[in-house]
């Protein structure tokens, strides 16, 4: 069955590579921070659902999770941030990213329906690999939400079809075997990996983990359809709190410019 391209996929076909910007919901002034990412030129927004045990995240995003939970953020709050974002920005693709337990706590169908109702286009669940897709995937697909999967340097060619099966929107390539925010892979290895992924799928490939500066983002944008930046943005929120939006917009602008013009 062919579906019309989702707004999520379309974000990677604007004639230039896309910037995917991540922040954690409930950390600082979420609405103002999200608006700053959009104003700065982010093409896709990834909104992190805070979790007490963010096993795949490095210190920056761990701290953001704890700040958010410490401020009392609930699942209802996260969905409300998404819903209000959708009202303010009807056309900017929005992805929820997080861990399985908060997503399936009230049942996968409940979550998928609530996320759809809040205008969410895609969901990245870090700790549900294809082997456990039943736990959330069918509910997301039934609700019309794209399950976005991760491919990593350890995902070999034999395994890749399984990762792609049932996923949509885009494919998130984790460029280093490790946790978020720490080190970056060499551009050469990324180029090779993206080429291998592109041979197996038509989905856009966004590359993340360890991308901090406009220069790094530009290097990746030369070879990938999109670049994901998270920890560097989240650190700004940690450092500037209520004053973060202006700084966030500044960095996002620089990143977006670098990504959008990387191939020009």
């Amino acid at each position, binding site marked *: 069955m062919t579906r019309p391209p989702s707004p999520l996929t379309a974000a990677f076909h604007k004639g230039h590579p896309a910037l995917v910007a991540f922040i954690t919901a409930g950390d600082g002034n979420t609405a103002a921070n999200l608006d700053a990412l959009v104003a700065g030129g982010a093409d896709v927004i990834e909104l992190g659902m805070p979790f007490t045990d963010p096993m795949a995240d490095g210190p920056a995003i761990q701290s953001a999770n704890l700040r958010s939970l410490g401020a009392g953020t609930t699942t209802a709050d996260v969905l409300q941030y998404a819903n209000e974002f959708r009202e303010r920005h009807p056309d900017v693709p929005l992805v929820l990213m997080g861990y399985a*337990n908060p997503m399936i706590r009230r049942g996968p169908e409940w979550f998928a329906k609530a996320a759809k109702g809040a205008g969410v286009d895609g969901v990245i669940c870090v700790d549900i690999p294809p082997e456990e897709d039943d736990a959330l995937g069918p509910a997301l697909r039934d609700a019309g939400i794209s399950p976005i999967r991760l491919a990593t340097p350890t995902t070999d060619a034999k395994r890749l079809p399984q990762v792609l099966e049932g996923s949509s929107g885009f494919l998130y390539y984790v460029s280093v075997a490790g946790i978020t925010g720490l080190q970056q892979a060499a551009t050469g290895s990324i180029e090779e990996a993206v080429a291998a992924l592109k041979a197996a799928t038509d989905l856009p490939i966004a590359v993340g983990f360890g991308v901090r500066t406009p220069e790094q983002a530009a290097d990746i944008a030369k070879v990938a359809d999109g670049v994901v930046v998270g920890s560097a943005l989240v650190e700004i929120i940690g450092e500037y709190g209520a004053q973060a939006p202006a700084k966030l917009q500044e960095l996002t602008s620089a990143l977006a410019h670098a990504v959008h013009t990387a191939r020009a």
Partner: protein
Amino acid sequence: MNNTTPNSFKNQPDDRGHFGEFGGRYVAETLMPLILDLEREYRAAQQDPAFAAEFDDLMKHYVGRPSPLYHAERLTEALGGAQVWFKRDELNHTGAHKINNCIGQILLAIRMGKTRIIAETGAGQHGVATATVCARFGLPCVIYMGAEDVKRQSPNVFRMKLLGAEVVPVTSAGATLKDAMNEGLRDWVANVHDTFYIIGTAAGPHPYPEMVRNFQSVIGTEARAQMLDRVGRLPDLLVACIGGGSNALGLFHPFLDDADVKMLGVEAAGHGLDGDEHAASLLGGSPGVLHGNKTYLLQDKDGQITEGHSISAGLDYPGIGPEHAWLKESGRVEYTAVTDKEALDGFQLLCRTEGIIPALEPSHALAAVSQRAKQMGEDEIILMNLCGRGDKDIFTVAEKLGVEM
């Protein structure tokens, strides 16, 4: 035989690592190929007589197995009721059952060509056991331990250092066992090429729950044969404490298809199940996903994990091995919980009646044995896993009893 005989309780998990709806492989994609590789290597090791022979040899000559089966006559008399017997796994090298699993996993690590070992630890018993086998086989070892537990369990921290391990205090979140496990998983994800993660309990992603259970099943296999040899029949009730649940599964699993043998798992009720300060995932929690498996967890309505509390650092994990979750739902094993205070009473009772200083973890099982023995007849037999010795806990106990040391 008749056709109402239930299916075996010993055929779990399925080939996806599921125990009923529990278990599984809920890990990040980076780890998934490694988990699959580990499973393949473990299956190959299971088929290799040389692997079993080396395991058995180390169990006998290094760990000191078989551990004795002991009839606690003075305790039996003091309680009045069923005969109480102990499986003395506290007499193992390093003082607890943890070493059984560590020997198995390090042999597998070596077989896989891994050159670096990591582990998490709560009370420090698994950390000590891991550091021990790393010293024995000459592999570098990093132990992640919650900063709170580092303070509570300083003798074990020193033991690990003496054995050459690097102990990394984990300060994120509540700084206890679950946070140490998060940090272990983060290390593993970043060092998958050379590192083997020795998980200390029958939890985590498949194949860990099955593998740890199988290595620990030496406890129940020995105990079953020893019972038949000594008294000519099987016990009526098995009792073991449960944090993650590996010592309990090790005792229970070989008996699961002995329909007349009842089983009781004892969780830590901390200050009581009516409040928030307990570590009883089965009795006071609900199903969810954490650390690679679906199981019962302590969590709030949004699925955020809450901190467990117990006087015993080895029991205050907010989850439990997925096989226990399944055994609970299937009704094969009964679960109960005892408070910090009841465990302390059990601790002192055993010191004075049998001249054995138990760890605070099996002191929970003792408290449950004390209650059950009185309700049973003198011709009935309770077999409890005395899974650890109490040297490490004397400072905690002294403090609770108001004694200055």
